[in-house]
């Protein structure tokens, strides 16, 4: 690439290694960028909605992921194009903030770009388009607020929450037991939610999966599951009303951190050392017994000697429990993590109503359930499924559902799904467009067209006639002046989304529109791409 030529037609060397760089500018750059953005959106388009298809992705080391979660697909695709990466980040942002609607946001951005391309061809300045989009996104944002419904729920009446979570789950592979999964998700979120501060710390919900069984066996446990077994096979498999000592120190003689050496030159000395070591073990176990612990959970391991001793003294123990799990156990049982035997006191023990080891099917795998905890602020969702891919996908789906439930606790407003909110926004934006003088009017109208892409894709994925269906629904919305007519993806026979109970969170939808507009603006604003030419 050369920026300038001298009077003999030779290029100036202005940039470092400029032969190896390529530069794209002006309309060409915009077209290329838009094409890249559209390409990414096209991939996700078929994943949208309850009848959306899944993608199979194979990682370089041969691991296979099957999913229809937009953020996951894009993440695994390893997009190289710069504009493509922006789309990936767009989807990730939606994932971070809302947790759901990651496919929708990309499809929407793609369709905004598609519309922008048409306007660019007509010679409209890209910034004017972006400004028009921004105006339109604000109109849509406010319109969503108007059509949103607030609904009340309490700990006793969680039906609306479940319905909304079901909408999210219906597009996933797990939709055959969406009802039970949605219930699990809602219960889990309510268990850890701080309703006063409207804050939900999702870290307190542990999602654990194990291959085997069927999806229907997935359950919510008010407590913790640890993928470990008792340290000694002969230890009791069930402990009622357990007092748990949660230790981060190993069952072994303490070691000073400073380098040390013990000089042993006589047999007697060796004997004393040996005795002392034994005494340590003895003391430790005794200490646990003294404070009344009936179960020891230890972050580190302990050797056979200690194990044997514990067994003899009738003190069941679990070893090698990870730090995060340990913390969750401490929270759930109301105990304290004890770093040193000397600190162990009765108050620091955690309490659990039932601790049991459970074996699965014919496998030797066992897991430990810690249930009926004193403080059930930490819960576990335990997923069963036929294979690993299924479990991974279920985990992602549950995560989406959890996020939706969390968002509803933060903000109670919902809009109707099935593309009805988009259609309603599209109508509102279209109507508002005429009030704007200037070039922006075209951009605003284009925005309205772009909004139609989501219901269109929904209809297409459901095997309906996209244009026919969309126009029918749109005219119905205008005629009846309602905002809850959507695409009847499941062929229920009605397109009244209230009857179908298809809800989405208001903040999720608003976020989608704002984020998509932002990124599209960013892409439109670029008129010069300088990159190394091997890309």
């Amino acid at each position, binding site marked *: 690439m050369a*920026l*300038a030529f*001298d009077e*003999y037609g030779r290029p*100036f*060397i*202005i*940039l*470092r*290694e400029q032969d190896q760089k390529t530069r794209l500018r002006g309309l060409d750059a915009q077209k290329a960028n838009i094409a890249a953005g559209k390409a990414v959106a096209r991939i996700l388009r078929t994943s949208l909605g309850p009848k959306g298809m899944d993608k199979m992705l194979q990682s370089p080391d041969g691991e296979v992921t099957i999913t229809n979660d937009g953020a996951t697909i894009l993440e695994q695709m390893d997009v190289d194009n*710069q504009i493509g990466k*922006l789309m990936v*980040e*767009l989807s990730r*942002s*939606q994932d971070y*903030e809302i947790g759901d609607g990651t496919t929708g946001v990309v499809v929407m951005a793609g369709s905004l770009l598609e519309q922008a391309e048409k306007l660019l061809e007509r010679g409209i*300045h890209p*910034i*004017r388009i972006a*400004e028009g989009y*921004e105006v339109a996104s604000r109109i849509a944002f406010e319109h969503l607020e108007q059509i949103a419904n607030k609904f009340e729920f309490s700990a006793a009446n969680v039906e609306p929450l479940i319905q909304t979570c079901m909408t999210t789950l219906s597009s996933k592979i797990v939709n055959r037991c969406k009802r039970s999964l949605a219930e699990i998700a809602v219960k889990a979120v309510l268990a850890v939610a701080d309703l006063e501060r409207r804050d939900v710390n999702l870290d*307190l919900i542990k999602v654990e999966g194990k291959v085997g069984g069927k999806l229907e066996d997935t359950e919510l446990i008010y407590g913790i599951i640890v993928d470990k077994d008792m340290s000694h096979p002969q230890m009791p498999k069930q402990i009622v009303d357990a007092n748990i000592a949660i230790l*981060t120190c190993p069952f072994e003689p*303490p*070691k*000073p*951190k*400073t*380098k*040390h*050496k*013990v*000089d042993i*030159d006589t047999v007697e*000395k060796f004997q*004393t050392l040996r005795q*002392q070591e034994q005494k340590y073990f003895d003391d430790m176990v005794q200490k646990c017994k003294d404070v009344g612990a009936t179960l020891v959970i230890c*972050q580190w391991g302990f050797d056979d000697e200690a194990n044997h001793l514990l067994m003899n003294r009738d003190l069941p123990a679990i070893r090698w429990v990870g*730090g995060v799990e340990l*913390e969750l156990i*401490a*929270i759930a049982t109301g105990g*304290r*993590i004890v*770093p*040193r035997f000397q600190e162990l006191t009765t108050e620091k023990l955690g309490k659990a109503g039932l601790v049991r080891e459970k074996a699965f099917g014919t496998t030797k795998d066992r897991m430990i359930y810690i249930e009926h905890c004193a403080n059930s602020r930490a819960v576990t969702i335990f997923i069963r499924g036929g294979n690993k891919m299924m479990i991974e996908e279920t985990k992602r789906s549950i995560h989406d559902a959890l996020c939706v439930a969390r968002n509803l606790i933060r903000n109670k407003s919902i809009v109707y799904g099935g593309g009805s909110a988009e259609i309603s926004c599209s109508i509102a934006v279209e109507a508002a467009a005429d009030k704007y003088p200037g070039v922006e009017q075209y951009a605003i109208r284009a925005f309205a067209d772009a909004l139609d892409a989501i219901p269109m894709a929904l209809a297409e994925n459901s095997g309906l006639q996209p244009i026919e269906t969309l126009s029918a629904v749109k005219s119905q919305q205008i005629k009846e002046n309602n905002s809850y007519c959507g695409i009847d993806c499941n062929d229920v026979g009605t397109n009244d989304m209230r009857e179908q109970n298809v809800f989405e969170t208001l903040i999720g939808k608003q*976020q989608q529109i704002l*984020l998509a507009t*932002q*990124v599209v*603006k*960013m892409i439109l*604003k*670029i*008129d*010069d*791409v300088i990159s*190394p030419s091997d*890309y």
Partner: protein
Amino acid sequence: MSAMMQPQIILLKEGTDASQGKPQLISNINACMAVADVVRTTLGPRGMDKLIHNEKGNTTISNDGATIMKLLDIIHPAAKILVDIAKSQDSEVGDGTTTVVLLAGEFLKEAKPFVDDGVHPQNLIRSYRTASNLAIEKIKELASSIEGKSLEEKKKLLAKCAATTLSSKLIGGEKEFFATMVVDAVLAIGNEDRLNMIGIKKVPGGTMRDSFLVNGVAFKKTFSYAGFEQQPKKFVNPKILLLNIELELKSEKENAEIRLSDPLQYQSIVDAEWNIIYDKLDKCAKSGAKVVLSRLAIGDLATQYFADRDIFCAGRVSEEDLQRVAAASGGTVQTTVNNVVDEVLGTCDLFEERQVGNERFNIFSGCPSGRTATFVLRGGADQFIEEAERSLHDAIMIVRRAMKNSTVVPGGGAIDMEISRYLRQHARTIAGKSQLFINSYAKALEVIPRQLCDNAGFDATDVLNKLRQKHALPSGDGAAYGVDINTGGIADSFANFVWEPSVVKINAINAATEAACLVLSVDETVKNPKSESAQGEAAASAMGGRGRGRGRGMRRR
């Protein structure tokens, strides 16, 4: 090489490229113009962005002149001057980096025909210097002061300045929102000269509107050990202890070795070690502090110890953040836990751990000294937030500048038109060649409004003529008229609150003139053959502002 075609006396080492005279000067000017062309389209509210992608795979999307110039990695010696002035403008005033490059390019472009016609460059340089002095005088005269206004009013005025800067950026759509934030932040740190008291934290996710300003300090939750979740996450009026020591069970001396002859002593060594750490922790707890922060690690033992005593702790807090907390809370960073008296403890109204997007943030707000502020920026993509950060940086600099030298001039090309008019008028009073040169200088200044129009897709000639007419009104009423970016017409920039601090313009004109003069004064380049292989870098810096020659002798393959 064409130099070889004619017989010549060999003075320099074989392969040395020496070019001189007028053609060399012209070639330097051409190179500078090419560079100015790159940033040309980024000017103004309808300016476009550049996407620059380097070999390492980093992508930057930016509208900031200095950033683009830096990333272009220019090696042409003459063109490098433009990079330098953009950088200097950036560090001096923080904004107007595109303007300065554009002006320098335009000055050179205007000079080119004169050089072609055989005018001696020194003549041009002299006239340019005179013109720039006159222009700066005129700016000072035209500038209006915002001194002596009430705080409320001043805040509004500063916000206008910030909004003008932001309008050309990606976050232009929310300029009012950010402008108020910037002004609040700058006012919060007061006259403090340390810019690092304003922290900018970036959290991907959410929309721009979710960005917020913390009147205090905020940082991302640090790595934590088991037991952290059991600590309380909210305090009202906590005492804050800031440390620079490790709170971990470790060997106190690196190379010490203990030899034990009696196994019974074993326990005592272990106990001694534990006592050291417990002693430290006890002292922390006794000081009454409810929040303990350390630049170094706080281990799992300490985490659990603090959790037991309802104290919040965070280890591995970055140096910058710790300093900010210290400044904000009025505490001092301790390197020992001995003698922790109340005076060294900081405090704030509210400490809280809050969820921001996908991250948890520790937020200290309502700090007594209030000399810090932290932006938490949100946005849809990393590049987006990066660019937002750069834009905010510009806006912060502008507001700070405007606070110090509190004079402003109308933007939107108005001030440039006015100076241009003034110089033209002045030129007519001069006899001699200088008249022409000052006239062309005046013409060059018009590039700002012209480019604003071009970028917005307006008819530049039409708008410029309208502006000239306004500015030529004998009453001087039209002096504040600039390009109206919304309608494609002209409007009173001053009344529309399109304001820039005058120091931005003064510095831009000064730097651009200097750069133009520097390029004009070079008439010979001697290029050492060795530097060819070193790809210019060493050569360029050693040769300073020397031009590269006529683009000859380049080995292209």
